[in-house]
C-alpha cells in the first residue's frame, strides 16, 4: 500500500523535483561543508569555537536552510540509490526497495527536524 503510493504516478513528479533540488544542494553546498567539518576543523586547519558555531546554528534562518537542504539531499540520495538497486544490481522487489529508500529518507528528515530545532 505504502509502496503503491510511493511508486504511484501522482508522487513521482514531486520526487523527481526533490531529486533535482537535492542534487543542486549536494553539488553546491556539500563540498564546502564536508571540507570544513570533516577535515579543516577536526584537523585544526581552521578554528571555530563552540560559542560561534552554537550561535550560527541557533539562528532560526540557519536551521531552516539546513533543514531544507538536508531533506532535499536525503530524498535525492534515496531516489538515486533506488534506481542504482534497480539498474545496477537488477534487483526485483521494486515496491519494497522504494519503500525502504524513501522510508529511510523520511526517518532522516524527522531526525533532522528534531536535531536542528532542539539545538
Amino acid at each position, binding site marked *: 500500500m505504502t509502496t503503491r503510493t510511493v511508486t504511484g504516478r501522482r508522487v513521482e513528479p514531486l520526487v523527481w523535483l526533490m531529486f533535482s533540488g537535492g542534487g543542486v544542494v*549536494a553539488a553546491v*553546498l556539500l*563540498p564546502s561543508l564536508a571540507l570544513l567539518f570533516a*577535515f579543516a576543523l*577536526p584537523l585544526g586547519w*581552521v578554528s571555530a569555537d563552540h560559542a560561534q558555531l552554537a550561535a550560527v*546554528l541557533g539562528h532560526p534562518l540557519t536551521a531552516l536552510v539546513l533543514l531544507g537542504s*538536508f531533506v532535499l539531499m536525503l530524498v535525492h*540520495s534515496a531516489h538515486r540509490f533506488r534506481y542504482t538497486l534497480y539498474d*545496477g544490481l537488477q534487483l526485483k522487489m521494486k515496491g519494497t526497495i522504494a519503500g525502504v529508500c524513501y522510508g529511510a529518507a523520511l526517518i532522516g528528515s524527522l531526525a533532522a527536524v528534531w536535531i536542528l530545532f532542539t539545538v
Partner: protein
Amino acid sequence: MSTPLPRTYVRPVSTWWWVRKRSYFVFVMRELSSIFVAWLVVYLLLLVRAVGRGGAAYQDFLDWAASPGMLVLNLVALGFVVLHTVTWFALTPQAMALRAGGRVVPPALVVASQYVGLAVVSAFVYWLVTR
C-alpha cells in the same frame, strides 16, 4: 500474483555489466555517490547535535572526526561528492536548455556559472563558520 511470461527472449545481463567499460563504470560510481551524500547528511546532523550538547560534546565530536577511520571514510565521501558536483554541473545544460534573448545559452557558460555559484556559496559558508 503471477506475472505472464514475456513472449520474447530477454538476454540475461550480468550483475557486473558496468565494469567492462569506463563510461559505464563512471556512471555507476556517480550513482553510488548517493550513499555518501546520505552519510554526510548524517555526519553533519551528528555534528549539530554535538554542538547543541555543549563545548565538551563538540570537542569529543572533533576528536572522533580526527580518528584515522573517520578521516578515511570522509575522504572517500568527499571524493564521491566531488564526482557528484562535477557530473551534476556537466549534465545541467543537457537537462535544460536555458534561453536568453531568444538564443540558447552556450552550455559552457551554464557549466562555468555553476562553478561560480559553488565558489560563492563555499566562501559564504567559510565566512559564516570562521568569522
